[in-house]
């Protein structure tokens, strides 16, 4: 398993950008910057006149690596360690989970905690613990 470099300032700066985007989405559109909710609104049945901003936001997000490349001259660091089969299973599990929890890292973890929601606090504590246990089981009990 490749070790990654500890990047406190870069990560803090990137986190601040994520926060700024979340604040702007609330200020301008009155919406929570939660990707579970934003993507869910694009899965049929789709509400009239409520899909345009969602799709535009996703298009903006997807164009980030190209913009990063234009500015930095290289692609952002990306290394997926899981096999494609595991990614498909993990994607399915993630979709099912976040539908029932009504939010993920962005919706509960950033926006929910920022407005001191009790539901979000419980959600974040639960999924952080569950993720840590899963990583421990996969890396230290089953693998490498």
């Amino acid at each position, binding site marked *: 398993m490749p070790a990654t470099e500890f990047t406190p300032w870069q990560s*803090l700066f990137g986190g601040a*950008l994520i926060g700024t985007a979340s604040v*702007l989405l609330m200020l301008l559109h009155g919406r929570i910057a939660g990707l579970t909710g934003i993507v869910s609104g694009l899965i049929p049945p789709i509400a009239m006149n409520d899909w*345009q901003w969602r799709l535009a936001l996703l298009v*903006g997000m*997807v164009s980030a690596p190209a913009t*990063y490349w234009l500015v930095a001259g290289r692609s952002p660091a*990306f290394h997926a360690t899981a096999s494609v089969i595991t990614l498909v299973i993990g*994607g399915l599990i993630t979709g099912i989970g976040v539908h029932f929890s009504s939010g993920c890292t962005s919706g509960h973890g950033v926006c929910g905690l920022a407005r001191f929601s009790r539901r979000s606090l419980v959600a974040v504590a639960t999924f952080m613990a569950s993720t840590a246990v899963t990583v421990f089981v996969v890396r230290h009990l089953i693998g490498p």
Partner: protein
Amino acid sequence: MTMSSSLTNIVTAALIGLLFGLGIAISGMGNPAKVLAFFDVAGAWDPSLAFVMGGALIVTAVGYRLVFKRNAPVLASRFNVPAGTAIDTPLVAGSAVFGIGWGLTGFCPGGVIPMLGLGRLESLAFFAAFVVGIALARKVRTMLANARRGSVTS
């Protein structure tokens, strides 16, 4: 909605998405190896993710305080904020299940979407399955709700 206001909506949403995506790309939140290294306290631990979450949380908490002093958002009629307060089974069980998916892959929804722009099979496979997962869960939830309603009325 007038033509120009809907254009403003779309352009601002796209720019906000770009900013969010740059934050993901710069912070390392879109790099599964880095995300998993944060959770691997027993292995080669990389605490960077705490700085991503911390930075995002501080900015959003302060920003929200200022934004919620307004009566309404700039481009919409009202703030669309979840009103529920119940700590129920779907919330806790759903979060626990999400953690399994995140731990298996290192991908979370907000992290994977910007990385779709790299055109890598890994992100596409996860994201496609993620969308199917939401659609499946929605169907199951509707069926359960209908079954419950049926048993109440009969």
